[in-house]
């Protein structure tokens, strides 16, 4: 709509036809949104290349600090630049000289673009195009991952499965204590040796220790051995000492299987030597074979099930499971479960504290991500208004006095 370039006088103003309505140019809006999306993607790639992208979703400690300042600035810049350029393009293509119409086109580009990002985000592909969508997606993904790994299918108490396994180990340890304590004969075997003799690493435990060794983390391997076995400190030290010499070789080759085999062999030899020592000390009263036979009644399924009830804080149910699946006397079961209960409770409390810490870190990250997403969206709106207005040319709208 052409407007008379002459300044209208009151008389001439009556002759100027003021349009009743303005037609939106959807073609221009579509082009603007296309540019907005393409620029978002381009800036996302540039941000990733510069290292100003989203925080590492696997680093819980980093996530606990929220988003870095570099990431925040980059996300805001992305939103500002993409919306401004898209709005300006839409206003220019609309061919209007009215800056108000241009700004309205800019707002439309922002709203359509935002809607598109929401839809793409919901379908899971938003993160590949838009940085803000990506940051929100990663927050959700990490929350889901941590909740999945932390939760246990059996007890539904958001506790990792390792807690149940540990509770089973406590039960086994208590049983070994009981058998040792009740063994008759003048020369009772050393308790710690009996415990060592009967403790056995499962394949899973062996793999956990071996993976730490292959990673070159000797301290972690020592901790895992201490947590998952009943070996004494000196026994663990001797195993770790032997492993540290070979760890470098495993780390270089990444040969996990070789490390697993080595750990298994070390454990077997430790058990054999301790069993012999135990049998020698106990004499006829109790042999390592008898101790092992007694413990064979406690198969892993029974132990795990009883351990689950301990973790859930139901020691009575745990006793019932042991009573139903073993030939142990009621008094023995009482002693085993009561002894293991305190240790299990301590482990549960520690696991809960860890989960709380993780949840807090996720909360901080999610809050920071939502906050930046909100500011980025608001900035996009402002940029849409500014870009649209600037893209509409320089002629100001003239209103006729009626």
């Amino acid at each position, binding site marked *: 709509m052409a407007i008379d370039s002459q300044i209208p006088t009151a008389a001439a103003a009556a002759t100027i036809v003021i349009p009743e309505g303005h037609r939106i140019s959807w073609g221009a809006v579509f082009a603007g949104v296309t540019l907005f999306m393409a620029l978002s993607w381009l800036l996302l790639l540039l941000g990733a290349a510069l290292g100003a992208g989203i925080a590492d979703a696997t680093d819980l400690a980093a996530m606990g600090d929220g988003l870095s300042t570099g990431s925040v600035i980059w996300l*805001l810049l992305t939103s500002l630049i993409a919306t401004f350029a898209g709005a300006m393009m839409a206003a220019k293509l609309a061919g209007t000289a009215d800056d108000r119409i241009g*700004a309205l086109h800019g707002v439309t580009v922002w709203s359509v673009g935002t809607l598109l990002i929401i839809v793409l985000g919901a379908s899971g592909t938003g993160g590949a195009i838009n940085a803000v969508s990506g940051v929100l997606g990663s927050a959700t993904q990490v929350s889901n991952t941590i909740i999945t790994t932390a939760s246990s299918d059996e007890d539904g108490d958001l506790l990792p499965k390792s807690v149940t396994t540990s509770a089973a180990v406590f039960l086994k340890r208590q049983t070994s204590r009981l058998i040792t304590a009740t063994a008759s004969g003048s020369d009772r075997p050393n308790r710690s040796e009996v415990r060592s003799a009967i403790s056995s690493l499962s394949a899973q435990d062996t793999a956990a220790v071996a993976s730490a060794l292959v990673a070159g983390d000797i301290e972690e391997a020592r901790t895992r051995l201490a947590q998952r076995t009943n070996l004494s400190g000196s026994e663990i030290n001797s195993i770790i000492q032997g492993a540290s010499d070979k760890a470098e070789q495993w780390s270089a080759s990444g040969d996990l299987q070789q490390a697993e085999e080595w750990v298994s062999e070390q454990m077997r030899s430790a058990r054999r030597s301790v069993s012999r020592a135990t049998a020698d000390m106990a004499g006829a009263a109790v042999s390592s074979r008898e101790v092992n036979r007694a413990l064979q009644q406690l198969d892993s399924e029974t132990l795990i099930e009883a351990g689950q009830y301990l973790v859930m804080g139901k020691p009575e149910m745990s006793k019932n499971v042991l009573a139903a699946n073993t030939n142990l006397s009621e008094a023995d079961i009482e002693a085993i479960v009561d002894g293991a209960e305190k240790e299990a409770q301590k482990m549960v409390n520690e696991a809960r504290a860890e989960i709380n810490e993780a949840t807090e870190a996720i909360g901080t990250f999610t809050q920071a991500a939502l*906050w930046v997403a909100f*500011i980025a969206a608001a900035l996009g709106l402002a*940029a849409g*208004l*500014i870009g649209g207005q600037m893209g509409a040319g320089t002629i100001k709208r003239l209103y006729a006095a009626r």
Partner: protein
Amino acid sequence: MRMSLLGLIVLLLVVAAVVQNVYIGGVGAIVLIVVLVLFLSGRL
């Protein structure tokens, strides 16, 4: 007028995001919405 107001809002929002201050951000967003409403109603 409109442009300078929008420029001020952009500045406010950027500062709010960088210092992670909810109050500044909230004020910025509310002012932005008010400006939008005034603009749409033709008063700005």
